């Protein structure tokens, strides 16, 4: 089975072909992003005189710096809140076998099936009444609640597979429950926290529908909404649009390639649980 025969070679070539096929759009993306607008040759031929002008122009006209900062603020705050409240909630929900605890857990799981359009339209009105529309805080509040079901689900599944002996020992030794959570349970949750961190970050960073609703018309846009606005404004200038797309993809891809091992394992492991 470990011999590298002709069949393996054929499979290798087929898989590389598949990867090139998947990578083709990204090649075109970069190729057109560095192309001067005056050059109208075929999009698949390599650009003959590459330039970085499109990037500076897109960065300034799209106000991408501000959008990047907003996305970062919203993502960091939401993910920190959701991980904190979800891990804390998972502790009693996984350990207490009373009926209220099971009922609460099932209610939270129900949230997994609800399409967010149902909740986010009425919530739009509440956010408006609270004066939060158009501010990043509306989004932080929204994601902090929206991501609870999935994150609690991950934590409870993981906690149930862990023996409670260490916490019991800590409680008998005189720890308060909060201390035992902080110093005993939380460190044991580290593997699933990494998974939850990755999955939540990707979900919040990439979301488009909610910021489109809650931030529309404000200057405080997140990156996906800023990109959509930019495309709407420069409909025909695709070289400029592609430069903006590259700028918005770059941080995600950079982080991805740096952390690819734990990201891929997180996706697979977290969802397998």
């Amino acid at each position, binding site marked *: 089975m470990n011999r590298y025969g002709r069949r393996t070679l054929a499979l290798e070539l087929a898989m590389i072909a598949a990867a090139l096929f998947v990578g083709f759009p990204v090649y075109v993306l970069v190729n057109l992003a560095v192309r001067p607008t005056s050059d109208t040759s075929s999009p698949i031929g390599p650009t003959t005189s590459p330039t970085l002008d499109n990037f500076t122009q897109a960065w300034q006209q799209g106000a991408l710096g501000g959008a990047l900062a907003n996305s970062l603020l919203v993502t960091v705050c939401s993910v920190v809140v959701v991980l904190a409240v979800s891990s804390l909630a998972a502790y009693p929900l996984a350990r207490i076998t009373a009926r209220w605890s099971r009922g609460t857990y099932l209610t939270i799981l129900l949230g997994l099936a609800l399409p967010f359009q149902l909740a986010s339209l009425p919530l739009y009105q509440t956010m408006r009444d609270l004066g939060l529309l158009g501010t990043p805080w509306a989004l932080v509040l929204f994601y902090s*609640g929206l991501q609870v079901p999935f994150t609690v689900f991950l934590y409870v599944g993981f906690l149930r597979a862990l023996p409670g002996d260490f916490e019991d020992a800590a409680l008998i030794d005189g720890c308060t429950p909060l201390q035992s959570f902080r110093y005993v349970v939380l460190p044991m949750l580290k593997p699933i926290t990494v998974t939850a961190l990755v999955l939540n970050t990707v979900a919040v960073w*990439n979301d488009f*529908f909610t910021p489109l609703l809650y931030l529309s018309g404000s200057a405080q846009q997140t990156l996906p909404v800023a990109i959509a606005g930019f495309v709407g404004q420069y409909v025909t200038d695709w070289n400029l649009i592609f430069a903006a797309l590259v700028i918005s993809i770059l941080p995600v891809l950079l982080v991805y390639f740096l952390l690819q091992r734990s990201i891929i394992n997180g996706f697979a492991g977290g969802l397998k649980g």
Partner: protein
Amino acid sequence: MALAPHERLVDKDRPPVVAPDPRPRSARTTPPWWFALPAMLLFAFVVLVPSVRGVYYAFTDWDGLDPDFSFVGLDNFADMLGDPDAKQAIWHTLLIAVAITVIQNAVGLLLALGVNSAIRSRNVLRVFLFAPAVITPIVTAYLWRNLLGPDGAVNSLLGAVGLGGARQDWLGDPELALWSVVGVTVWQYAGYSMVIFLAGLQSVPKEIHEAASMDGAGPVRRFWSVTRPLLAPALTINLMLSIIGGIKLFDQVYALTGGGPGHATDTISTLIYKDAFTLGEFGYSIALAVVLTIIVAVVSAGQYAALSRNERAAS
């Protein structure tokens, strides 16, 4: 000879003598209930209460702004039956969800089998094939909008390899546009399915494969009899994720076609957005969201039942 008390305690034939804890186990070890409170409050404020209010609005004629609105009973749902756009959107939603589920999982499984084999580039390929799944969907959709244009890279590529006759207006042709949306979504998420299948494949013990191989089972037979049953949990998760994701699909449609040409690619999600925020028909729009919820619930319940039967049969 009498045993000293401490020797009695380690007597192998008897359990060690420990004073029983008078408290019940739950009272001894359980964390307090209020740990769950912050998460519950956030969940109730953001998801639960608005969802219940949403169901109420579905029976009203609210326009999203006017504080005066009235209860109209089932009118919104009756209107939906007479609204060809809504019926078409529901149909598109189901079609897209099923097509994405089938194609994405088939492709994902093939890729997973490929990168789980003995090929040398398998680690690099895993990283590259998964990459589209982390990129912002709205961004990949705009990228593809250009690639699939009449003068876009896809048509150029077809021309360059001598298939100029296969050039199409991928997004402008009402017959094709829906399939282009499916294709782009599969391009983005096939690697996602691949990774989950890969995790399942790696739980298949190598020894069983080798034993089957020694017994003369070919690759197809080994896949069907050894690998497939052990892949059942991965398949369950993949099918759930892709069908629910497909039903709720919004970003790709919004950025690729905006629901057009005409209404050829409108889904329930895009129609909800248009009705609420461009037409001000908030009550009607939220009734559509209720229909979307019912579809998600029915599909996932049915799928859950079928798949857990399948998993039991496979194990």
